[in-house]
């Protein structure tokens, strides 16, 4: 008897009965493409042939946040899977409509909280596009360098947690050791470790000082050796390879059809990277490669991310070199479109008025203007569609977040996999629920 027939949800559940009933109904009625595959081949029935409906999450350490999976198992094989998200839904898009453009930026820190700097940059670029604000060169290089450091930090967490899911707890601790250095850099440069909020519309809030530059230089020097150590440990590690090879395979066509982005797409053999596709900031002027693998399994995605970290180091090196010689303003010198500098605010009347006006009303893009700007965040294409009604607050903000897009592919990936691989597969997709749930 199925779980739907057995259970009277209104009687047994006081909390969200309709939601749970809908979820399990979907699981039951979902077309299982596996049945088509298994029942035709005349293979003997599995000794473990028994069906079970299992609920995993939302509170589960392996689901990387509050992801909930309802799965139907046949023995150890996942026959059908329905993901349920929204447990961290805060309505950020709704909140944006009541904030000024600059006021909204701290909310983006809390979306993909593993790479807050990238989110800040994505938001600022989208607003700058809809309002037509130019950004000084130096600010663009600073933004680019810090975004790449954020990418390394996000990939390090993916690696540590992914390996912990596979049973190797020590790598988790090692990756946090080096992430600590990155957090110190962010603390020095931006004034905060996690919620950085360093970017401003029209530039960045403060310049990098010599200490910050020295810390980044030191990190760039040390990181390749650390990275090489992990590569040595993992690339030929029998356990790690066996856990990853050939699971969660997505073909090229499937990956495009399901709309996957970022390293997951590149692991399936599609060299699509927003940094090349529509270069923003100064990515046209730096030299880097886009790592890509053809296999489309979890191992391919592992290689892509590991190589991406080294490409990021390459970009950071070029940024450091450029920033040594490139001096200049770090924010647009137009007080109607960007915050005036603190010197101006403290020592001139106009500066004070502009600062007040910018906090109160802020930048007001022309009425009816709408634009979409995407960046390559660590997890894939992060885009903001911003629509203006001529006031200082956005009329509509639509966020295109990579974790949301990738999780849709995870549902497909899990079906047909083994229950034991599920944890690895969630790790390989690298979702952040703060971002997927908006």
């Amino acid at each position, binding site marked *: 008897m199925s779980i739907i027939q057995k259970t009277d949800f209104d009687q047994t559940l*006081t*909390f*969200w*009965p*309709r*939601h749970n009933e*809908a*979820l399990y109904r*979907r699981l039951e009625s*979902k077309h299982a493409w596996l049945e088509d595959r298994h029942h035709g081949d005349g293979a003997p029935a599995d000794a473990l042939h028994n069906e079970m409906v299992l609920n995993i999450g939302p509170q589960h350490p392996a689901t990387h946040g509050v992801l909930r999976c309802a799965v139907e198992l046949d023995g150890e094989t996942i026959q059908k899977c329905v993901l349920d*998200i*929204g447990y961290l*839904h805060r309505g950020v*898009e*709704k*909140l944006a409509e009541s904030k*000024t453009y600059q006021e909204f930026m701290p909310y983006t820190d809390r979306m993909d909280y593993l790479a807050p700097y990238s989110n800040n940059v994505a938001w600022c670029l989208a607003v*700058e*596009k*809809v309002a*037509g604000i*130019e950004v000084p060169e130096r600010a663009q290089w600073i933004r680019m360098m810090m975004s790449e450091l954020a990418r390394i930090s996000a990939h390090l967490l993916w690696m540590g947690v992914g390996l912990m899911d596979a049973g190797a707890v020590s790598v988790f601790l090692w990756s946090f050791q080096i992430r600590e250095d990155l957090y110190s850099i962010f603390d020095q440069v931006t004034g905060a470790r996690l919620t950085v909020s360093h970017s401003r519309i029209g530039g960045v809030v403060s310049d990098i000082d010599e200490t910050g530059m020295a810390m980044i230089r030191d990190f760039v020097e040390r990181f390749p050796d650390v990275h090489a150590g992990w590569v040595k440990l993992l690339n030929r590690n029998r356990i790690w390879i066996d856990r990853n090879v050939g699971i969660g395979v997505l073909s090229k066509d499937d990956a*495009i*059809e*399901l*709309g996957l982005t970022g390293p997951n797409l590149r692991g399936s053999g599609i060299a*699509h990277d927003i940094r090349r*596709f*529509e*270069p*923003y900031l100064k990515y046209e002027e730096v030299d880097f490669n886009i790592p890509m693998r053809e296999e489309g399994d979890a191992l391919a995605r592992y290689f892509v991310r590991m190589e991406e970290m080294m490409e990021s180091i390459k970009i950071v090196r070029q940024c450091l070199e450029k920033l040594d010689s490139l001096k200049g303003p770090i924010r647009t010198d137009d007080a*109607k*479109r960007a915050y005036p500098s603190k010197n101006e605010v403290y020592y001139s009347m106009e500066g004070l008025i502009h600062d007040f*006006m910018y906090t*109160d*009303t802020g930048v*007001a*893009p*022309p009425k*009816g203007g709408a*634009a*979409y*700007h*995407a960046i390559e965040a660590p997890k894939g*294409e992060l*885009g903001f*569609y911003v*629509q203006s*009604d*001529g*006031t*200082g*607050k956005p009329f*509509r903000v*639509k966020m*295109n977040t990579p974790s*949301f897009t990738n*999780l*849709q592919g995870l549902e497909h990936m899990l079906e047909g996999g083994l229950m034991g691989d599920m944890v690895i597969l969630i790790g390989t997709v690298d979702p952040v629920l703060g971002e997927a749930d*908006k």
Partner: protein
Amino acid sequence: MSKKQPTTLAFRFTPADSAAGEDSNPHAKASTDVEATLEALASHFSDAVEEVIAYAGERTVRVDRARIIDVLTFLKKEQGYTYLADLGGIDRFTEDDRYEIMYNLVNMDQGKRIRVVIRVDEDSMTVPSATAVYKAANWNEREVWDMFGIRFEGHNDLRRMFMPDDFDYHPLRKEFPLLGVPGSLPLPPQTPSGGLTLDPFARAHGSIPPKSFDEPAGEDD
């Protein structure tokens, strides 16, 4: 319906004519220059294309709602826009044809990005589903249904995306209050045997649940 009043100061200090003009936008990308696609659309769907809006170097094509599946199929099969990057709704509130749905399509081979938009009237809130053309539209359409209450015909799993199905409102509509509707979404019980918490600010209103280590009150207390 009366015109919505802006809540900020009435005078806008950014002059409107300094707009992010057509060609002067510093962030305009080469990928959004899609003249060839626009020409193809105009010649194939001369009756369906209602408007082409240009802003910040981007092109937004507004098409007839009834023809959207034809247009999407044409763009995917003939024009190479195989990748659906984004799909979302917009509430225009005071205008006629209140809602908009936008499709953000990417052509990876030629490096192009185009935005297609349809308008939905409040009286008929049903739109043909794009899931038959782009599988990736699945969750995005569920999100639009959740947030705006627009139904997608032909979508095989139209549950709410973020909010639970026990919730009766569509929060991204402009008339939905920012603070929410009290009592619309019960929170879990505060004690294992207790009832649902209907007050979203229970603690602020003086209801402090006992800790697990607290002794329950005896009968003679």
